[in-house]
Each structure stands twice: as C-alpha cells, then as structure tokens.
C-alpha cells in the first residue's frame, strides 16, 4: 500500500503502529507462560526504533505480534488503522506481504535461488506483473548496493551481501515498516555497521524501521530505544545522539589494517 492511501488515526497524526495493553500468554501443558504483560507502544511514521532486552524479556514475542506472525491474547494492535487482532490467517498473510518487510538474523534466503529470484519472491504472492516484478527487484537490489550481483546464489555471497539481499526482499513491496530481528547477529562488526548504514539510509528516505537487538552498540544507530524486561516495557526513550554508520565506518580500521597493526 502506498503512503498516500494510509489513513492516519484520529488524534494521532502520522501514527503507524498503535499497540495498547498487549498481553500474550502461551499455554505450555499445564503451565501458563506470560510472555507479554501489558505492553503499550505507539510508533509514528518515519521512526527508527530499537527494541532491546535480554532473552526471555518478551521482545521476540512482541516482534512476532508486530510482524503479524502471531496474534495477541489481549489488547489491541492497530497497524495503519487496521485492527490486526481481528484478522484471519489469510488476511494476516496479505498484511505481511504488503505492509511488513522482514529481515532476519539468519538471512533466511531460499538456497539455490538467485538473489533476484529471492527478491522477486514477495511479489509472487501479490498481483505484480512479471515484467514489473523484475524491474522492481532490480531496483531494490540497487538500493542495497547489489545491482551487480543479481544472479548470484546465496552461497556465492558473503554474509553481509546475503543480508542485503534479504533487505532488498523486505523492501520490494514498499512496506510500511521494516522489521529487523537481530539483523547483525551473524555478521562481523564492520559488516554490521554497513548493514546498519543501509537501514539508516532507508530511514532517511522515510521508511519506518523497527530493530530488535540485544547489542547496545547496534541499538545506538536507532533514534529511539524501547527496553523490555520480564514482558513489560522498562523504558522508552528517544536516543538524543544516534551514531551515524557512515561516520563510524570511516573511523573503523579495515580488517587488513588491523592485521597490519598486529604485525
């Protein structure tokens, strides 16, 4: 859905996500696990939010609900004015297809499938003509700087490049939000900063980015920090001085330089 069509909620101009009193209870046999105990978050269009917390804090559960992969037990989740909690499986699939772009820790590309085919994949599940599909996939790969590797297979690409393909795939249907779940977890520090640079670049162009991470370094690139603990939000504050990936990269020694220093 394009941005012109989205209707802002009354009284909350430009608000994209409105989550109120969200709880999630898992039934594990006899035991009830309270993964989320009343979480309220509002995210406006164009934000760059880092969701932080230790494992078991409920941030993954929150992410799954945010990504429409799971439904809350109680509470409301409005995404661009749509009450997601009331949707069917198929409608949720459509929301994931059009409004959400996922980036995962393990890249989750289809193996033995070229970069461009991986990026084209979301468009198979929406009504995009074959011709337009290819053009859009190339455009998305260009945005992440992989325009020259569109026919490479995942096993021919480095981790950073694979993650860029995944970002291109997340971008290709022009989603309202990009959800990145530990996107730098499998990458070395330099590549991590490069990937964060791509997210910052996308965010500058008006795309809302929500990032789940437990690394404070990575969270520093976001504009807002939401900290989870024990299924609740412990703190929610604006990052006054987000780091700029471009600057960090300039200051960072390359691996070759590090080796030279060591020698």
């Amino acid at each position, binding site marked *: 859905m394009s941005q012109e069509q989205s209707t802002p909620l009354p009284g909350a101009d430009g608000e994209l996500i409105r989550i109120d009193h969200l709880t999630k209870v898992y039934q594990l046999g006899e035991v009830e696990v309270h993964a989320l105990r009343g979480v309220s978050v509002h995210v406006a269009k164009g934000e760059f939010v880092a969701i932080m917390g230790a494992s078991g804090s409920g941030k993954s559960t929150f992410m*799954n609900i945010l*990504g429409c*992969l*799971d439904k809350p037990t109680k509470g409301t989740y409005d995404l661009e004015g749509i009450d997601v909690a009331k949707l069917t*499986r*198929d409608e949720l*699939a*459509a929301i*994931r*297809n*059009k409004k959400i772009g*996922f980036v*995962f820790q393990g890249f*989750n*590309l*289809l193996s*033995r*499938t070229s970069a461009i085919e991986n990026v084209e*994949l*979301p468009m*198979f*599940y*929406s009504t995009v003509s*074959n011709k337009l599909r290819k053009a859009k996939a190339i455009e998305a790969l260009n945005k992440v700087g992989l325009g020259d590797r569109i026919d490479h297979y995942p096993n021919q690409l480095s981790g950073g490049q694979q993650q860029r393909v995944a970002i291109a*795939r997340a971008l290709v*249907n022009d989603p309202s939000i990009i959800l990145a779940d530990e996107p730098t977890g499998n990458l070395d520090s330099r590549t991590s900063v490069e990937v964060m640079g791509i997210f910052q670049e996308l965010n500058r162009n008006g795309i809302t980015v929500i990032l789940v991470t437990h690394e404070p370094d990575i969270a520093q690139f976001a504009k807002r920090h939401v900290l989870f603990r024990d299924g609740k939000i412990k703190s929610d504050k604006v990052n006054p001085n987000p780091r700029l990936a471009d600057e960090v990269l300039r200051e960072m020694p390359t691996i070759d330089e590090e080796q030279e220093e060591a020698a």
Partner: protein
Amino acid sequence: MKTLNILLSAFRALQRNKMRSFLTMLGIIIGVAAVIAMLAIGQGAEYSVKQQIASLGTNVLMVFPGAQQQAGVRVAAGSAVTLTEDDAQAIATECPAVQFISPGSFAGGQVIAGNLNWNTHIQGVGADYLEIRDWPVEYGDFFTEQDVKSATKVCILGKTVANNLFPESDPVDQTVRIRNVPFKVLGVLTSKGQNAMGQDQDDVILAPYTTVIRRLAHWQNLAYVLVSAVSLQDIANAQQQITDLLRMRHKIQPYEPDDFTIRNQTDIASAATATTQILTILLASIASVSLLVGGIGIMNIMLVSVTERTREIGIRMSIGARARDILTQFLIEALVLSLLGGTTGIIFGVVGSSAISNFAKWPTIITAFSIILSFGFSIAIGIFFGFYPARKAAMLNPIDALRYE
C-alpha cells in the same frame, strides 16, 4: 501466485533433487507401464480368442439330433435317429436364411501311410464344409458333390496329419489306409492352428460324410448338420426357420418338445470372451497395485520434502504466502512428479508391449482407453497422495516454521 510461476518453481524444486525425483517417479513409471502392458496383453488375448472363434465361422449353426427316449429316460443328445440326410437337404433348400449345409459324422482311428501311422479324427462332411468353415485347401483339391453322392473313398488331410504321415513327400494322390480302408488323398488343408479350447484343428482328416458313415462309423446316422447363415444377422432367422422346418418334417405337435438341438457359436464366443476379460481385469488389478505403491512413494517423498523445507515454508509465509499458496505449491509438485512419471510410464508401457509382441509372440493391443485410464490414474494419485503432505505444509505455524533447524 500465478499458475505458470507455480509450475516453474515446482520444476525447479524437483530439479534440485534430481535423483530423488527420478526415483520417486520410477514408482509411477513402473506402475503405469505395467498397467499399460498388462491391459495390452489382456486385450490382445481377448482379440485373438475372438479371432479364433471367428475362424470357426461366427455365422455357423449346428443342428444335433435329439436324445432318444427309452421309458422316459433321456439318453445323450444325438442318440436318436431324428436327423436324416433328407432333413439336411430340406434345410439347404427350404430355409432362405441358410447359405450352406454340411451333414457331419465322425469316426476315429489309426491312419497308415507307408510305414508311418497316426491316430486322428476322421470327419465326415459335406462338399460345402470348407465354405462354411472358411477354410481353404493349401494344395490339391477338395471332394465334390459327386464324391459325396457316390461315397467315394477320398480324403483331405489336415496340416498336422499331413506332416506326420508324409513328412517328406507330397501326399496328393497317395493312399492312406484308415482302419484298413484305402482312401485316396485329394489335398491338404491350410493350417488353422488351435481352436479356442486349445485343440489342434489341423489334426483331422476330412472325407465325404457318406463314405464315413458307410465305411468307417459304427453309427450309421448323421451326427450333426453344420449350417451357415447367409449373414451374421441372419443367425436367429436361420435358427427359427430350421426349427419350424424340422418340427413340421418330424410332425411334432405344438405341445411336444423339439427332437433336435440347434447351437450357435455366439454362446461359446461370449463365454470365451468373458474369460479373457476376467484375465485382463486381473492383470490390470495386479499392475495397479504397483501404481498404488508408486503413489505411496510420492507421498513419502513429499512428506520428507515438507519437513526438509519447513524453513522455506516459514520464509514464504513470512513474506506473505497464504496457506493455500503453500498448499498449491506442494500439490503441484506432487502432481508434476506423478504426471511426468505417468507420461514416461505410458511411453515405456507402449514400447514394452510391442517388445512383448515381438519377442514372446503374444498379441498385444494398446487402446486409447488404457492410455487415458493410466494418465487419469496418475493425476488422481498425484492429487490424492500429494494432498496430505501439502496440507501439512500449509497448516504449519509460520513462527515455528521459521525457527525450524
């Protein structure tokens, strides 16, 4: 997801595991090929049985004399003298639906030619016998109406008899002694092979029925009259006309039963055809068991595939694939497997059947029906055995599928 795209991605998925896809298809290939070949053999057998029955002459009727009644006890059919040569002539002249007749009598015995001998059947027949049986003489001549009238001691040898009595020489104009009666050989019949019951039709000597009755048979009356109808459609008419004629000639009152029996080949033919049809069904059912096993192979491999590709399913779901998209994807893969297997199986079945015809000399017939049947069967198997794994894939929870290692 568009049909063409689904098809392409199904082909690609199968291509990734070429060996596995091939082995899975092999089950269907063998099953379909077996069904096609078995149907071809069965239908070939049915056809040749029909051919053999037709070789007896399908428009042929046999009139037998009735059973003798002694104090209410009926003896075997043909034991009464109720069928005379005059009756036979009357059938020939007075029944418009009758084309040829050949009165018949039998004798059996040892036949001697030179220093060789052979035990065979001696058939006493009329001059039109070969017309009725549609059985040409290979060389030499058949006897004439005149030979029948004067009961000449002439005979025609069946191929088997000729081969056994005259292995190296030409039997025509030679003499054979049948139970010490010398018969001049006029000719040799063409080979007719086995009949539907497996008897060698060439193991016979034909002689004028008059000669057989007077010189050889213990039984001095006609054993039967072979009648051919003008056409296949006239069999019923001929049967009715003969019945009416003989009842009138024998002065049978309306309340009395016939003192003769008329039989036609259709009864025998339908019994034999039914037997071969059962054979066909039996062969095809055995073959379809292997097709079923092939289908289970598809289901097995699709289940493995779904488990292996759980993560892929999770990825597809996370980027917007609906349950039905996943279902279609896996169903199409199963269908492509079974259809490719089915098509290859049809080719193998057709080739295999003609190989059987060539090497085992068995007649095989491949009908459009058997091809359509096996093709339809493989589609049905793809859908049936593909559905459960596909549904299993579609019902996966995207979160669990994504986390699957």
